[in-house]
């Protein structure tokens, strides 16, 4: 069990000499506390698997250091790092039974047999694998195999962190929920640091207490699910998280006012000094914009379609050329294609060159 520090960590598959822009992982410095549940979230190719492989030691970083509890483990091999990793596809030793699979990492480390048996029994109990201990592992279903992969990591009492690389990819949807709750329960019970890589925001937000959003090799924001939702620090976080994603539209911002299409929207904070020459946008989640009957004080928009998600309806509208999504209040019936938009000023954020600008209250 360990706190993990990444110090100026970066990696390029082309070697250290490559241009920084081509790095698969651009320099990142952050600390993951002991016992935390972290999710690395981002689209394919954003560098999240690279980061995971750097921590597990499968890939050696081009730059920077990784510290476990303050000790530099960057040069250590995977074997010596006390990491457990669960891969996208279940890795099972075909010829072994479930029991032998679970005992394998301990046997390799020369742990006495009595201790191995006790540990395997305990972990099998935790993972609900006890009835299958004597079975050949190849005969089990994908979710049971993933549990075995996980179990092989957990049997080691000295494990520093458990890494998951999109572990639910091959699991049936109805079992995904079960397995994910199992992971959460294990996390609470064992007080382990867990790092979970996924491109599925639901998985990330339900599993982790801290979600690290990555984009184009960079960590763009790290925070609780609520923080990512309420206050995205980067426009990418805004539209990647949430369904539908955040509305981002170019606007002219001065003081406590933003202008879209010549229309003024009030802001909650004062944006006195904005970086000169930057591309200014405002971002607001569809949940905080309501459609209403057109009125003179409201920004007018044209409805393209309405998505009924059951609990809530979202209108897809157009403001000039910009696409926009807004909530349709319950009971509101759309008179014709033309509507007005009502903003909640507290949830309208201002972005300069995609980065959040903190206003003055």
């Amino acid at each position, binding site marked *: 069990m360990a706190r993990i520090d990444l110090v100026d960590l970066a990696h390029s598959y082309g070697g250290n000499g490559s241009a920084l822009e081509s790095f698969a992982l651009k320099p990142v410095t952050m600390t993951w506390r002991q016992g935390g549940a972290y999710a690395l979230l981002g689209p394919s190719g954003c560098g999240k698997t690279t980061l995971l492989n750097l921590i597990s030691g499968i890939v050696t970083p081009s730059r920077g250091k990784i510290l476990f509890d303050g000790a530099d483990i960057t040069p250590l091999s995977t*074997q010596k790092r006390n990491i457990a990793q669960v891969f996208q596809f279940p890795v099972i030793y075909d010829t072994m039974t479930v029991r032998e699979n679970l005992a394998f990492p301990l046997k*390799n480390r020369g742990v006495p047999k009595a201790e191995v048996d006790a540990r395997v029994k305990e972990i099998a109990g935790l993972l609900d694998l006890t009835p299958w201990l004597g079975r050949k592992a190849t005969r089990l279903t994908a979710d049971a195999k993933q549990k075995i992969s996980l179990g092989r990591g957990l049997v080691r009492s000295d494990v520093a962190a458990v890494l998951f690389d999109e572990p639910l990819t091959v699991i049936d949807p109805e079992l995904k929920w079960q397995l994910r709750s199992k992971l959460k329960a294990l996390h609470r019970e064992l007080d382990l640091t867990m790092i979970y890589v996924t491109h599925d925001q639901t998985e990330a937000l339900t599993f982790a207490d801290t979600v690290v959003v990555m984009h184009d090799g960079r960590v763009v924001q790290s925070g609780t699910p609520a923080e990512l939702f309420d206050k995205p620090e980067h426009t990418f976080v805004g539209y990647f998280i949430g369904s539908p994603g955040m509305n981002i539209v170019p606007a002219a911002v001065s003081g406590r006012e933003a202008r879209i299409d010549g229309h003024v929207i009030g802001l909650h904070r004062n944006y006195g000094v904005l970086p000169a020459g930057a591309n200014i946008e405002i971002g607001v989640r569809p949940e905080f914009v309501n459609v209403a009957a057109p009125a003179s004080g409201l920004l007018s928009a044209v409805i393209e379609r309405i998505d009924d998600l059951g609990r809530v309806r979202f209108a897809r509208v157009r403001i000039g050329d910009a696409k926009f999504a807004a909530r349709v209040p319950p009971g509101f019936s759309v008179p014709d294609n033309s509507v007005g938009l009502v903003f909640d000023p507290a949830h309208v954020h201002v972005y300069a060159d995609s980065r959040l600008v903190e206003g003055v209250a």
Partner: protein
Amino acid sequence: MDKTINQKAWFLVLPVFLVVAFSAILPLMTVVNYSMQDTFGNNQFFWNGVGWFKELLDPSTDLGGRFLASLGRNLLFSAIILAIEVPLGIVVALSMPRQGWTVAACLVILALPLLIPWNVVGTIWQIFGRPDIGLLGYTLNSLGIDYNYVSNEFDAWATVIVMDVWHWTSLVALLCYAGLKSIPDAYYQAAQIDGASRWAVFKAIQLPKMNRVLLIAVLLRFMDSFMIYTEPFVVTGGGPGNSTTFVSIELVKIALGQFDLGKAAALSLVYNLIILIVCWIFYTVMTNAGTERPEKQGVK
């Protein structure tokens, strides 16, 4: 549902039936027919019933003695070359590079012996091993080793075995290499994380994943070595004495040398039957011992 009855469909099967009849059924039945008869030439045949089969299995008769002795030699030969080629092929496959231009180079070099016609392989080794002009034979004799495959039984066997290993280990190696390449990287990474030694990785991952291709390799090598004819015929001609006379060589001697069609037919049928049985045993044992098909059984 009612099936449409259309007897004309039989005509579509007719071409296949004719081809199979001429290429397989008629020759096979002719052999069965011969195996029950004796001939003294001039197309005169005499009914002999199962006489030849009885003789074949009785070592005290000439036919039975020759058959059983050559069968014993053949099984020993197959056992030896399998015992050498399979482990050697695995070792070669394991030590081959996994990426880069060297992969292509290795594959081409390995494939070379496989491309050489069998009688040419025989000729190469026949000359290579000659004590007077062959590089191998001359070198060995110069080193003080009395090597002569024409007069010494052990030398003859050694030559035939080394020749087969040289010719066919590549096949086993290539099959194993294909098996190894199909193992996803995650297995190796997981094994690394689990702290597995090189030997444990081989035993727990590589060998089980090669199981299928090894089955094919063993079957192919067994069948090929069990019907081996050309190479030993060219190198040793079955000698010295009868020491390298394998079943096929004996069969050709009886059928074409002595023109004993009845004896030869009976022998070839038994020969065929042995191959079928051994292959069936291999297949059954190896498929059951190795991969077990996953059952649909949910773990809740």
